[in-house]
């Protein structure tokens, strides 16, 4: 589904990703872990198409197509979704109207008519129940005054509505208490299928108790330096990242 080959990326001439290789197949869950500043969030943003990052070398291939040159909306139309570490507050746009616009613009890009209003309402109801979201919440301005937990839940709600092929969860666990973490993880698991894939970016192992990865990759200094199974996550949790760094530098 997603093939990243020798990806180098920089921001303002500062190299951040220095040759990433990653292959994600349908139905898989990949975890990307690593210390602060290792390039985890950059990797997520580059795949999602954030324009301030420059791809200097390498390729990002989605379903056989190179998506390097596509704008973020075009990637979204092809099924890429990123759950933001820091979702942006947008006063004046309600959650409902935002998601309606997102869905209908995606449909428009695929040559489909707008989703009928009753169908949209039904879908919103269904997905908000899945994530235990209060209906009143949906008429509030997008992320404005939301608690950390509400913001993250809202991200997963959007993911549930948009049903992406490839979901990248960037530090979705940060700022969540254990109950919210469970609800969010549960939501992600319910959306999981044989046809889609998830990349979980996290600093800590605790989210991976709920969203169990098939592969765990350790990112350090812009490269994937180690790949293993979920046991690797436990090992990192117990021993920290220093031993990985030492192994690399040895």
């Amino acid at each position, binding site marked *: 589904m997603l093939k990243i080959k020798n990806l180098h990326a920089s921001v303002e001439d500062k190299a951040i990703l220095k040759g990433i290789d990653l292959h994600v197949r349908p139905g898989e869950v990949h975890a990307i872990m690593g210390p602060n500043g290792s390039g985890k969030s950059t990797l997520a943003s580059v795949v999602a198409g954030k324009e301030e990052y420059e791809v200097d070398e390498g390729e990002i291939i989605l379903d056989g197509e190179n998506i390097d040159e596509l704008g973020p*909306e075009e990637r979204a139309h092809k099924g890429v979704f990123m759950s*933001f570490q820091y*979702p*942006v507050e947008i*006063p*004046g746009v309600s959650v409902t*109207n935002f998601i309606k616009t*997102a869905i209908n613009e995606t449909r428009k890009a695929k040559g489909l008519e707008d989703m009928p209003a009753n169908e949209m309402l039904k879908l919103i109801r269904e997905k908000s129940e899945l994530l235990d979201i209060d209906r009143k919440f949906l008429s509030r301005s997008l992320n404005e005054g939301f608690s950390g937990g509400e913001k993250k839940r809202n991200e997963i709600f959007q993911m549930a509505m948009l049903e992406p092929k490839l979901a990248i969860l960037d530090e979705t666990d940060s700022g969540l208490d254990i109950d919210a973490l469970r609800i969010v993880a549960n939501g992600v698991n319910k959306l999981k299928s044989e046809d889609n894939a998830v990349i979980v970016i996290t600093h800590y192992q605790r989210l991976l108790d709920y969203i169990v990865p098939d592969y765990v990759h350790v990112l350090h200094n812009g490269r994937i330096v180690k790949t293993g199974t979920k046991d690797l996550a436990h090992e990192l949790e117990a021993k920290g990242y220093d031993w990985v760094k030492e192994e690399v530098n040895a």
Partner: protein
Amino acid sequence: MELKEKLVSSFMAFENMVDIDSPVHDIRTEAIKTFEVEGFPTKRQEAWKYTSLNSVLKHDYSVFPKHEKALEFKDVKKYFLHEIDSYKIIFIDGKYSSHLSQTTHDGIDVCLMSSALTKPKYRLIIENYFNKIASNDGLSSLNTAFSAEGAYIHIPKNKLVEKPIQILHFSTGNESALMLQPRNLVVVDENSHVQIIERHQSLTDNPILTNSVTEIFANKRAIVDYYKIQNDKSTASLIDNTFINQKQESIAKVHTFSFGGKLTRNNLNYYQNGERIDSTMKGITIIGDKQHVDHNTLVHHIKPNCESHQDYKGIFDDRATGVFNGKVVVEKEAQKTNAFQANNNVLISDKASINTKPQLEIFADDVKCSHGCTIGQLDESAMFYLRSRGIPEKEAKALLMFAFSNNVLDSVKIPVLKNRITRIIANKLGVDIGFDL
């Protein structure tokens, strides 16, 4: 001949056309003298520092249109709020169109200034209200000198006028260049409520210059909602001089939607002559090309325990320029005044500009006055967020700009008007998305 000289020398001809026995004859004569002295404002005057009239004064305007031209409703329907029942006072090239209008004398007077200035039954109102609050600057004086036509609205006490009143001025291009001087008088007596929508619409590419004066009197506990739609052609310019006198516990709200025109100057002046008055001014300006919109507001707090609220949003693209100059005067007697002023702007292009200037003159010591102005660009991280959800760049931009200006629409009480403004905004931003936010 310079426009000023032309106007001054046309005054005699004008006087011959109108009834010089009218009580306003002396007022007009006085006004033309004032105009002769004052002339048109220039950039040397502080209040006109950022707005030059040179480019609009250079045309050889006809001062009185010679021919009358009829318009069919179907051809201009789109400029009306036709979905709702309303009173209509319609002018074509400055002349009243009875064909398109719907006036009334049934308990309220919604009719013509030309009647009010000449018929004895209106004499008392004219004597008490006409030209009582319009200032004697050059432009207002010019309008007063040539005041003959416009809307006359008198709502006696305890009337809730449910149907909005639409005032529309069309210009057809019958003249190669036309200058108009519409004069409106709105008197709302005790406990009455009225809603007025005003629009100036050119149907031609010939230059049009409108110098309008509106005097509004909101008497005790009256409520006045006034909406100005400024979405004219790029060859039409408007100088709107509005003066509002409020008595105790009255509420007067003016919404100004400026989306078009070559040059638009809004001189909006409030005088609070009573206690517990609410004065609200709101505006959305969305312009591009080389358009220019200047909001010049004044709130004069004279009595204690009153409020004023100003909220102006501006979005400027291309080489468009904007001005906001908000003056608030709080007299010594006006204790416990609450005066708020906000002017927020987004510049879409590097070449667009806005000059914003709050001006507070406070002589009372127990008041709450706040003002804030911002000038910014569209938030890049918000753009990425929206686009990453599949909303294309243009639509994302439009959504953010609409969200930015949205709160100004909250207080629009006529749903059909709100929809119309929303559609004009979507159109202006070049998108086709439902902003049912």
